């Protein structure tokens, strides 16, 4: 589903991603972990062709990430998601649906289901400027789920959510995983990752430290947090 081959990204003298290679199989729930500035968001941006790698190649469903077609069934939620403040949540979702070539009635049906899924019934018609950060995040997740994508790329999806919201998002991701959706998760919440994901990769200073199943990475008597700290601190 996702393939990175010897990907390097340099910003002048800074190497944000250094010769990283890994694959994510269809139906896998994968977590990309690393401290701040490790290069996680840069990898996500390269997957979506928001920035080009200095060397190496990336592909989604076998299609190079530089081609728009590769994003045909990809949902994306950005870290610190933003929505135009003058739109209502409903109109924002409607726009996202229309951009996926849905007609008006099909888009409206789909949006109704999404609003229910993200638990925002009754608030969808008010302007985004009146929403809390968590509500904006929920609508962002709703937009990512538009069109029933096969691959979901989530950059810090629980950012700004309260513990109940985090739990709801986790439950939602678990149900999506059960439906066979491939999930690529960038998160700092290691306890949540441990509960949801099958595989994980840890990167630090742009270098891939480990990529394996969670059960292989975490040894008996350890938590993912212990492994993370041990690997990152060297």
């Amino acid at each position, binding site marked *: 589903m996702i393939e990175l081959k010897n990907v390097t990204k340099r910003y002048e003298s800074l190497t944000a991603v250094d010769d990283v290679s890994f694959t994510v199989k269809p139906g896998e729930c994968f977590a990309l972990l690393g401290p701040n500035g490790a290069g996680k968001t840069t990898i996500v*941006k390269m997957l*979506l*062709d*928001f*920035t*080009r790698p200095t060397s190496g190649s990336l592909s989604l469903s076998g299609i190079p990430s530089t081609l*728009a*077609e*590769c*994003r*045909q069934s*990809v949902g*994306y939620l*950005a870290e610190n*998601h*933003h*929505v*135009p*403040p*003058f739109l209502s949540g409903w109109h924002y979702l409607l*726009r*996202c649906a*229309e*951009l*996926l*070539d849905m007609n008006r009635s099909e888009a409206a049906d789909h949006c109704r289901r999404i609003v229910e899924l993200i638990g925002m019934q009754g608030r969808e018609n008010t302007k985004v400027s009146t929403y809390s950060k968590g509500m904006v995040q929920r609508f*962002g997740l709703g*937009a990512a789920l538009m069109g029933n994508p096969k691959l979901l790329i989530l950059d810090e999806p629980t950012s700004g959510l309260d513990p109940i919201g985090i739990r709801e998002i986790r439950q939602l991701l678990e149900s999506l995983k059960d439906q066979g959706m491939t999930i690529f998760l960038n998160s700092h919440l290691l306890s949540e990752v441990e509960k949801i994901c099958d595989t994980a990769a840890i990167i630090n200073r742009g270098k891939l430290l480990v990529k394996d199943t969670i059960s292989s990475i975490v040894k008996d008597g350890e938590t993912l947090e212990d492994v993370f700290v041990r690997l990152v601190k060297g």
Partner: protein
Amino acid sequence: METSKSLPTITRITKYTLIDEVQQRSFVVMFVFCALCVFLVRGCYQGNYMVNGQILDAGTIVRTLSKATFHVIGAGVMVIAALLSMRIFRRDRNEGMQACILSKPIARWQYVMGKILGLWVLSTLFMLILHSIVFLITSINLQVFMPEYLVASLLCSINLLFVVIAVLLLSLMMSDIIAFLCILGVGIVGFVADGIAAASQSQIGQAIVQQSVGQPQSELTWWKVVYVLWPKLLGVQQLASSLIESESSHGFRPIYPLINVLVYCLILGALLFKRFRNEDIV
């Protein structure tokens, strides 16, 4: 990507650009202010004007004033188009729409094309509405019908396309306000140079040149080349306004300014697409 598949996407982005701009308070204020200013021109049509001791007839007054208003509106809307274009990429970035659109199976060129068309259509409508106010004033109050006035307005929209593309391109390379000022500078220099050129072509101007130089200069100098190649925004406006002139006066002026501005649109458009293709989306 096939053109038939690209077209609905470009149309949607164009529509969203239009809707988003119209919802901005600053746009509404600008539009109402401009419309009120054009309404104020109404009073100018009712005065008695005398040139060389002769009172001008109503038809001449209407056409002369309408032409003057035409040029003022044309130049003014160019400034407004630059103001609208300079912040479009930044706003889309800050409000998350750029990432939202480009994370879908939409190519960058489709996004840029949608933005260009949205801004062009919006500024053309803006100008057409203002010109229509003048058209309605002359038609209803003075019973002088000038449908060619609206045709001229549409022809003038080529200038708006140039302004939109140029400001969008520059806003990717420098701060928004500098991009705006650069294009304002290009426009002002072009208008002044065309004004000087027009004055030097007049009888008085030719006489002054002959007195000071002796013989009219015909050799090619670098500034003449720069002048010829400079974006001919005023030239396009003059070409368009020549449509408004009465039948007895001179017809269509040479179409070089139109070709000049269209070539600039193509070159700057190609540069804009190339530049945006390599732009990092944040």
